[in-house]
């Protein structure tokens, strides 16, 4: 005889989150699921802002998250499936749900889940699951607290600590085609964490204004503070003393440009707030790069020799002073496919010199075009790779496979996935994928990380699509 099931209320409590000697504070909750909505275990139902205050007050001493504290958030998942009910007072609206006005109490109950249980069963409160999110603003002026990870960040990241196993860090350093793959539809890493179990940490670096080519990333690793100072002085002196008076947009660009040159994300380490206190992660266990970040020429500073790339359409939008500085001080340095391979080798060796176990993943390029219907190649000058975009992409993809054999890297075969999905329906201008295609690429990235044993990136057996 079947047991009679009745609704049982499972209270959802925040659970422990503390750092000895500091105070963890939070905002009110912003709900992502309606009161009364059915939710599955592991589903993110709400989020709030969070901060770690020092003993002497909000800003007396810099805390471990001092450069992320204004966009430090936690996404809250239900540990059990059932019908969600919000607790009164969990959300306060307005600034109360944006600013960190409340102490984090482990016994605070945000709501409850109605689960179907045998009659007479009693439920203990369940601890919610936490996905921590942090954005490092390009400038503290970028005040955008409208949602989850909605600011202008030069780095955003998410992590979840589960159990005592080792935590792995994935660092994404590609162009825009990795944006949705890594950060997902809500730009808050929800999909990638829903697809894995274990303690994992995902870091995303965007490509504006400086595109993360292999040579640029290698130069970031080896650039000394003195060399950076020389670059900064050269740039600022040129702006101040140039013929064109810099306008506001020149200075805004200058700040982001110098910030990008100064960073070295591959060697970064990161503070991690967890149920068991403050941990440290990084440098990354796995780095994912993109062949779309490797144009056939880079901009090289004539005097100081450093190399950068900025997407052409951004250059069109530059202020006059910065634009003139580029024209006067940089040259376009042509690169061959072999040069790009050489840059990759140098970067991979630099990374593994410091952390030999680092896994490197590189996304290849879509190498066919829906606009192309060539039946006769007589009208294209040899070598075809220097003339035709699609042949160039094929040459670069082949180079990646040679590199994979030589340096034991993994190729994320976007070319094959795009062909299987159909570019007309799923790929805009050879780069921007549809949601389903992003999900497929994400699954492929996670399959590679799992197969290569990157800690924390174990795929869930039954991933909800």
């Amino acid at each position, binding site marked *: 005889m079947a047991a009679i099931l009745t609704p049982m209320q499972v209270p959802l409590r925040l659970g422990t989150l503390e750092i000895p000697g500091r105070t963890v504070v939070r905002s009110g909750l912003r709900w992502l699921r309606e009161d009364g909505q059915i939710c599955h275990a592991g589903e993110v139902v709400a989020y709030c802002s969070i901060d770690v205050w020092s003993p002497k007050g909000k800003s007396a001493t810099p805390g471990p998250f001092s450069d992320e504290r204004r966009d430090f958030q936690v996404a809250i998942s239900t540990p059990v499936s059932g019908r969600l009910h919000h607790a009164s007072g969990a959300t306060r609206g307005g600034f109360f749900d944006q600013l960190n006005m409340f102490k984090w109490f482990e016994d605070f109950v945000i709501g409850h889940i109605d689960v179907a249980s045998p009659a007479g069963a009693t439920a203990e409160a369940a601890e919610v699951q936490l996905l921590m999110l942090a954005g490092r603003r390009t400038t503290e002026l970028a005040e955008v607290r409208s949602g989850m990870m909605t600011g202008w960040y030069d780095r955003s990241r998410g992590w979840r600590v589960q159990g005592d196993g080792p935590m792995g860090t994935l660092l994404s350093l590609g*162009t*825009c085609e990795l944006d949705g793959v890594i950060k997902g539809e809500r730009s808050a890493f929800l999909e990638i964490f829903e697809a894995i179990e274990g303690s994992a940490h995902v870091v995303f670096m965007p490509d504006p204004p400086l595109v993360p080519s292999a040579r640029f990333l290698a130069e970031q690793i080896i650039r000394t503070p003195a060399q950076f100072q020389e670059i900064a002085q050269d740039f600022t002196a040129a702006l101040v003393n140039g013929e064109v008076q810099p306008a506001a947009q020149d200075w805004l660009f200058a700040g982001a440009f110098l910030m990008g040159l100064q960073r070295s994300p591959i060697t970064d380490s990161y503070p991690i707030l967890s149920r068991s206190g403050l941990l440290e992660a990084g440098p990354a266990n796995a780095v994912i790069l993109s062949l779309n970040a490797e*144009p*056939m*020429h880079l901009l090289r500073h004539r005097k100081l020799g450093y190399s950068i790339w900025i*997407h*052409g*359409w951004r*250059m*069109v*939008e530059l202020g006059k002073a910065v*634009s*003139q500085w*580029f*024209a006067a001080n*940089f040259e*376009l340095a042509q690169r061959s496919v072999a040069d790009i391979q050489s840059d990759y080798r140098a970067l991979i060796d630099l990374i593994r010199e410091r952390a030999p176990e680092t896994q490197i993943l590189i996304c290849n390029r879509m190498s066919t*075009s829906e*606009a*192309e*219907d*060539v*039946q*006769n*190649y*007589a*009208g*294209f000058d040899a070598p075809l790779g*220097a*003339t*035709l*975009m*699609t042949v*160039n992409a094929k040459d670069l993809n082949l180079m990646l496979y040679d590199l994979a054999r030589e340096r034991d890297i993994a190729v994320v075969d976007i070319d094959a996935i795009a062909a299987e999905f159909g570019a007309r329906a799923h790929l*805009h*201008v050879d*780069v*921007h994928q549809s949601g389903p295609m992003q999900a497929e690429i994400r699954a492929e990235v996670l399959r590679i990380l799992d197969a290569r044993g990157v800690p924390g990136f174990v795929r869930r057996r039954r991933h909800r699509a």
Partner: protein
Amino acid sequence: MLLNLILPRFNPYMSTAIIDVVYPKVGDAITIGGKLMDVTIDLSAMAPHDCPPISYYRLIGRDRVWLRRLDVAVGGEPEVGASLALFSTEPDEELDSAPAREIRVSIAGIMGRQAWPQF
């Protein structure tokens, strides 16, 4: 027989193309696979945040013809459907009849200079 070349919509978002290069001169014979024109499709105005909004294409002839009239010049920006050129299948054919059909062309994305106004 007269054949015309009109600007095709080979990118679903394009409305015009900028003529970068016209390879043949009026009167030149075009072989199968001969270069006709290189064009730039600039989608910056409609999709400023989409990368890459500027792309480059080459039009290749797939008929054995003679170029008899050019309707565009380098730097021009004809709209989709505009006449670019008129060809004939004989070198000295009269041009007073209507084109029998469009010239067959192949189109391919080519490596263009980057959209850097500074260089």
